[in-house]
C-alpha cells in the first residue's frame, strides 16, 4: 500500500517492489537452469559420440584438419558457381512465379488457354522432384541436338531450378493474392478502378507484402538446391568436394562444403525470422505500412 494517489490524468506506473524482486529472481533462475541443461546435454552427446567404437576412424575421415586446410580454398572457389546460379535463378523465379500466379487469376474466358497452361505448369513442376527435372533437362535437351540450343550443363541445371522453384513460388504468390480480403477489391472497383488497376495498385502490393516470409524461406531452400546441379557434372562446391574426397579417400571436403552452405543459410534464416516477427509485431501493434 502506498499513499501516492496519482493525480487524475497523470501517467503513473507502479509495481510493488517485492513483486518486482520475485519476478526478476525467477527470470535469473530460469536462465541458469536453461544454461545448465544445455551444457549437460552437450556433454552427454559428446561423451556418447567420442566413446563410440568407430569415433577414431570417423574423426580421421570426416574431421581431418590437414585435409580441411588443403581443400577448403578450392571448395570456396567452386562455391562461387553456386552463388552465381542462385543469383541468376532467383530473380527469374520471382518473375515466373508472379506471372504464373497472375495468369491463374485471369477471369475472362478468352484467357482460358493461359489459365490452363499456368495450371498445368504448376501441377507438373510441383509434382516432379527437382533432381529429376535437372536430369531430364540437363541430359534430355542437349541430346536433341537442336540448332542453337545451348549444351551447357550449368545453363540447363539453372533452367531446371528456375522451372521447379517457379512453380512453388507461383503458389506462394497465389496464396498471397488470395489472402487479400475481397472487400479490398470491391472498394477499389467501387472507386472506378479497372480490374488491372485494382490488381496493380491495391491487391498485389498487399499480396507481396504478405508473402515475403515464405518467399525468403524458398530462397534459403534454393541456396542449398544449387548443389543439385552437381549431377550434371559442372564443378560447383558439391562436385568439387566429391572429386577431392575420391582422390584422397577422405570425406572432410564434404564437411567443408556443408559448413559453407550453413555459413550462408543461417544468416538468411535469421533474417527471415526477423522479417516475420517484425511483420507480426506490426500487425499486432496496428503499426504503419
Amino acid at each position, binding site marked *: 500500500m502506498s499513499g501516492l494517489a496519482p493525480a487524475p490524468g497523470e501517467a503513473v506506473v507502479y509495481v510493488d517492489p517485492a513483486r518486482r524482486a520475485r519476478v526478476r529472481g525467477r527470470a535469473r533462475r530460469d536462465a541458469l537452469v536453461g544454461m545448465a541443461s544445455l551444457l549437460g546435454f552437450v556433454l552427454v552427446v559428446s561423451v556418447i559420440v567420442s566413446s563410440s567404437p568407430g569415433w577414431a576412424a570417423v574423426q580421421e575421415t570426416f574431421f581431418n584438419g590437414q585435409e580441411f586446410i588443403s581443400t577448403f580454398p578450392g571448395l570456396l572457389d567452386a562455391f562461387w558457381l553456386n552463388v552465381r546460379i542462385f543469383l541468376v535463378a532467383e530473380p527469374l523465379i520471382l518473375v515466373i512465379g508472379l506471372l504464373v500466379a497472375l495468369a491463374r487469376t485471369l477471369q475472362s474466358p478468352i484467357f482460358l488457354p493461359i489459365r490452363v497452361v499456368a495450371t498445368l505448369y504448376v501441377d507438373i513442376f510441383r509434382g516432379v522432384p527437382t533432381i529429376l527435372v535437372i536430369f531430364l533437362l540437363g541430359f534430355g535437351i542437349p541430346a536433341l541436338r537442336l540448332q542453337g540450343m545451348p549444351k551447357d550443363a550449368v545453363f540447363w541445371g539453372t533452367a531446371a531450378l528456375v522451372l521447379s522453384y517457379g512453380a512453388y513460388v507461383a503458389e506462394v504468390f497465389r496464396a498471397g493474392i488470395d489472402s487479400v480480403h475481397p472487400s479490398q477489391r470491391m472498394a477499389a*472497383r467501387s472507386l*472506378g478502378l479497372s480490374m488491372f488497376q485494382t490488381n496493380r495498385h491495391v491487391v498485389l502490393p498487399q499480396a507481396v507484402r504478405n508473402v515475403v516470409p515464405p518467399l525468403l524461406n524458398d530462397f534459403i531452400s534454393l541456396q542449398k538446391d544449387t548443389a543439385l546441379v552437381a549431377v550434371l557434372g559442372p564443378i560447383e562446391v558439391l562436385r568439387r568436394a566429391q572429386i577431392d574426397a575420391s582422390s584422397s579417400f577422405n570425406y572432410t571436403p564434404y564437411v567443408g562444403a556443408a559448413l559453407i552452405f550453413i555459413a550462408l543459410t543461417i544468416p538468411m534464416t535469421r533474417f527471415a525470422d526477423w522479417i516475420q516477427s517484425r511483420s507480426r509485431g506490426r500487425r499486432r501493434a496496428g503499426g504503419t505500412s
Partner: protein
Amino acid sequence: MTSTILDVRGVWKSFDDHPVLRGIDLEVEAHQAVVLIGASGSGKSTLLRCINGLETVDAGDVILDGDVDVTSFDTDLDIVRRRIGIVFQSYNLFPHMTVLDNIALAPCKVLGRGRAESAEQAKVLLARFGLESKSGEYPDRLSGGQAQRVAIIRALAMEPEIMLFDEITSALDPLLVGEVLDAVRELKAGGLTIVMATHEMTFARDVADQVCFLHDGVVLEQGPPAQIFGEPMQPQTQQFLSRLPH
C-alpha cells in the same frame, strides 16, 4: 423543380435460392437524401450494391440520370462507379497506403489527373473534414471515426453525383458515430444526392427527405420522415419502429 436522378424499377436479386430483393422500386430525386431503414437482412445493403453494379441483378432496371441503365450488359460499370460513390460499413481503406494516397489514387488513375493535382484536391477535402493532420498516416493509426471519414472523402474525391452509404456507422464505437454523421450532414448541406442504409433513426428523422422501410425485399412504406416515424401505416413498420430503443 425536381428531377429524378436515380430510378430503381422492379429489381429482383437472390443468392442461390434465397430471395433478397423481390421487386424493389425506388425513385431518388437530385440533391435529396433517401434513408433506407429495415431489419438486418431486409435487403438494404444488397440494394445499394445493385445500384452501383457491385452486384448483378436478376431482373429489373436501375436508371441513372434518365439515360444509363446500370443493369444493362452493355453498360461500362467503371464509368457508372465514377458517378456513384459508395462507403461501406467496414471502411475498406487500403492499408498499404497513406491517407493521402488512399484518397488521391482513384482521381489520379481513373480520372487521369496529375499526381500533384490529385494530392492537392485530397488535402483540400481533408481540411474540409478536419483531418488535414492525418494525411501522412496509415489507416491502422486512425480511430474508426477518422477511418470512416477518410473513406467518405475517398469516395467524394471522385466527385460522384450520388453517394451510397451502407450502414457506415454500424461498426463504430458509439462515441465516434457523431463525427461521421456530421460529415454526412455536411455533404447533404452541400447538395449531394444521398442514399443511405442506417439504423440511426434520430439521424434519419433529422436529415432524410424520404424514408423507405424495406421489409422482405420490397419497399413496404415510403414517405417523409415525419410520416414514417410519426404515423407509420403498415403494421410491419409500426412493429419495426416500436422495437427500436429510443
